[in-house]
């Protein structure tokens, strides 16, 4: 359960970016979370809303975009992997969809990126 520290780091980063751009208010925050991180987007969102209180982010809308997993396998396959278990954030892939083996590198799916923010600022 490291959603709290991640959310805290997200809030600090957003406040920093907002202040640098002379924002009066942060309206929206778009965050990309990789499917293979062990982060639960719903928990992150909830904690972000709690931590936003009494900050420039209070009331901001948090959009979380899930980045699908992508692997590069020793068999030559490069691409996505099927999520087969219906779990919302934890996708325990252990095999390549092409050769069925586990000898692959993870290319995408481990992000926790603050993509952009929408702010209101003085003209």
């Amino acid at each position, binding site marked *: 359960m490291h959603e709290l520290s991640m959310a805290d780091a997200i809030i600090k980063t957003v406040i920093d970016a907002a202040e640098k751009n002379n924002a009066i208010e942060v309206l929206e925050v778009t965050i990309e979370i990789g499917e293979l991180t062990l982060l639960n987007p719903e928990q992150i969102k909830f904690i972000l809303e709690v931590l936003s209180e009494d900050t420039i982010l209070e009331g901001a809308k948090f959009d979380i975009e899930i980045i699908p997993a992508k692997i590069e396998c020793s068999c030559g396959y490069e691409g996505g992997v099927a999520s087969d278990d219906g779990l919302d954030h934890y996708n325990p892939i252990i095999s390549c969809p092409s050769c069925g083996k586990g000898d692959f590198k993870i290319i995408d799916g481990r992000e*926790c*990126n603050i993509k952009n923010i929408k702010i209101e*600022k003085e003209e």
Partner: protein
Amino acid sequence: MHKIAEVEVQNDILIANKKLAKRNQRILDRAGVFAIDFLGAVGSGKTTLIEKLIERMDYSIGVIAGDIISKFDAERVKRYNIPVVGLNTGKECHLDAHLVEHGLEDLPLDKIDLLFIENVGNLICPVDFDLGSHMRIVIISATEGDDTVQKHPLIFKEADLVIINKVDLANAVGADINKMVEDVSSINPHVKVIKTSLKNDEGIEDVIEAILEAM
């Protein structure tokens, strides 16, 4: 007048941790220190493994013992009269590169060859956080059940060595050790798997050999 503006941020929190981890590794490399991150669940045998290695390895060893709020693990290692830093993560379930950076500041790195970093007992959260170590050893035990590998695949994907401990208790708890080994190999075909019973000093020499190979 107010206006609405969209600002690109593109700041990845996990990449920020990775950058700090790389910096830690540069600090370690400059000091000639080989660092190992020990990961495993509560009660898998991390501290026992570290104690056995300290007793048997002829190197100057330092330890960073991560724990949520206690110093029990750090105290256990202190009796060997080696440099030990206890890191409390507070409410956090894992060590991160920033905490380890502070740990490194409190260690006499120029007098150490080997640094053992004991992560918080957890098979999930530490996966996302590189510390800057040169080797990741994951230790699990038969008593956690023989489905524990399948339930936590990512930590095994990232491991450089996997130890299955308490194999002497496998029958008592009905755990199939061969299944555990096969599960690890299917997730990470290149990783070495060593079976141990640390209480009985079984397999410890194989672990030392694997560490020496990695150094």
